[in-house]
């Protein structure tokens, strides 16, 4: 073909619907994510505990088959709030570790290499870019938090008649607790990823923010003889929300509503910080 015929022609193929364009970023990020053997291995490991719980539920419901193992007449596991609280806590901890590996690499390479313009010159808005990057974490973390939690809940419901109606708040607890945790974790890691150029430093900072928040919150409480220090302890705030669904009556420094508002405020701050960094290049004449 003659060179002069290789002129620009607009793309004439099928367009991705506008509402789902952000998922294109997820699709590409997922490929990168599972290219690392360590991350793939860790992600797989995150399903070990839910599987163990599932086996526990099964064994619980079919206790007669396992009667040779125990002389106890009662159930092996008590399927109550404590069970789901422990399950959610373990999975949320694993979600935190997974975020520390995945999150920092999502935005920082785009900013450090000036690649943001390449995204934004396509029919993709800033909000869609952020939504796309956020979806990478939200979808991945969902697979290891509320999805297996819901599976456990419905499995137990199928095993015991009337259990579902009596314990519906446990499902809400799993969903609300996991959603809040995922939202705060994702936004925090994306904000750190956007503000810290180095991926590895952003990961270490995520670790520091969580542990320092808890430690400094306790220091504030001890020195100022107050309980307001817990407001900067993200893990404690999420625990207050979860406990309200799973373990009624446990005294807490704040109401679940106050804790949820504090978490949303932290998420809002992170989003603001993120949006400040995610900007197309300006042409200065």
């Amino acid at each position: 073909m003659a060179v002069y015929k290789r002129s620009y022609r607009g793309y004439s193929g099928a367009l991705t619907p506008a509402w789902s364009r952000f998922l294109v970023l997820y699709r590409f990020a997922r490929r990168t994510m599972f290219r690392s053997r360590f991350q793939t291995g860790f992600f797989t490991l995150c399903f070990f505990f839910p599987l163990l719980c599932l086996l526990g539920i099964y064994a619980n419901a079919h206790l007669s088959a396992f009667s040779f193992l125990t002389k106890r007449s009662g159930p092996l596991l008590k399927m109550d709030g404590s069970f789901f609280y422990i399950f959610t806590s373990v999975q949320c901890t694993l979600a935190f570790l997974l975020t520390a590996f995945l999150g920092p690499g999502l935005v920082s390479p785009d900013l450090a290499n000036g690649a943001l313009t390449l995204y934004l010159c396509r029919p993709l808005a800033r909000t869609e870019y952020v939504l796309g990057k956020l979806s990478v974490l939200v979808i991945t973390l969902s697979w290891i938090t509320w999805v297996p939690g819901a599976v456990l809940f419905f499995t137990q419901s199928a095993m015991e008649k009337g259990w579902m109606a009596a314990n519906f708040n446990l499902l809400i607890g799993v969903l609300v607790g996991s959603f809040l945790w995922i939202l705060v974790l994702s936004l925090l890691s994306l904000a750190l990823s956007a503000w810290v150029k180095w991926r590895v430093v952003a990961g270490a900072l995520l670790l520091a923010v969580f542990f320092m928040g808890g430690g400094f919150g306790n220091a504030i409480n001890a020195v100022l003889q107050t309980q307001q220090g817990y407001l900067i302890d993200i893990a404690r705030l999420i625990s207050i929300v979860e406990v309200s669904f799973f373990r009624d009556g446990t005294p807490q420094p704040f109401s679940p509503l106050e804790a949820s508002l504090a978490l949303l405020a932290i998420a809002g701050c992170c989003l603001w910080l993120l949006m400040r960094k995610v900007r197309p290049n300006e042409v200065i004449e």
Partner: protein
Amino acid sequence: MNLLRWQQVLGVIRLEIRKTFFAKRGFWIYLLALAPVGLFLLHTIIEIQLRHMGRTRDASIGQMSFIYAGIFQFFYLRLAIFFGCLGIFMNLFRGEMLDKSLHFYLLTPMRREVLLVGKYLAGLIAASVIFSISTALQLAAVLAQFDSATISHFLYQSHGLSQIASYLGVTILACLGYGSVFLAAGMLFRNPIIPAAVVLVWEAANPVLPSILKKISVIYYLKSLCPVSIPVDPGMPSLLALLVSNAEPVAGYLAVTGLLLLSALILVASMKRVRRLEINYTTE
């Protein structure tokens, strides 16, 4: 080491000190160090205001020194200095690799062990200065709420001066211990999250470890040197309280020797590693 080597070490220290103290990316370390100062200052201001208003919470100097000991052991040593050293010492080698500037050092006619010692000493000086000043300021902020008679009684008759000296010494030893650990980790691992998380868990689990394993940690020696010991929380679940054992504190000279030995061992291992260090910036 001959004179030339020492001059080379001093040269590296001079270069690194400037980078460590004035780097924009190290700004958060100052925040980390000064956060408890702000907290104690706020407490003092509140106490003075309450006193002016005729109300007081009656915090005696003994109570305050106990609260300070708790904050020092559980927040300052285990978290602030820990993460501060992580930031300073991991940056010495790993930061240069990320900046793609380590080869400039390696191209100079200098033994790599000299480079490592120079970098370590520079990090140690920076961390010790930053965190010791913070410790001194925290103690000053704690004491500022009391009148001069109470302060002089505490300093000269209640072993206050020796307590202050102990806190400053423990701060420097913590920088020395954690510094060596993170310097080695910076050369061994590409991602600092893994060693940081492992060391953090190991140090946090120290009270429940068997006594032989307790000794392979930095916090064990530092706790022994702290002037005020904090008992096990009475609100702790009984199962955990059974596991937690407040190990017999070792004698001061043994604790210092143990920590120096631990750091020296890690540094010797790092020296062996740095000899075989190869740079591949494309994988960073």
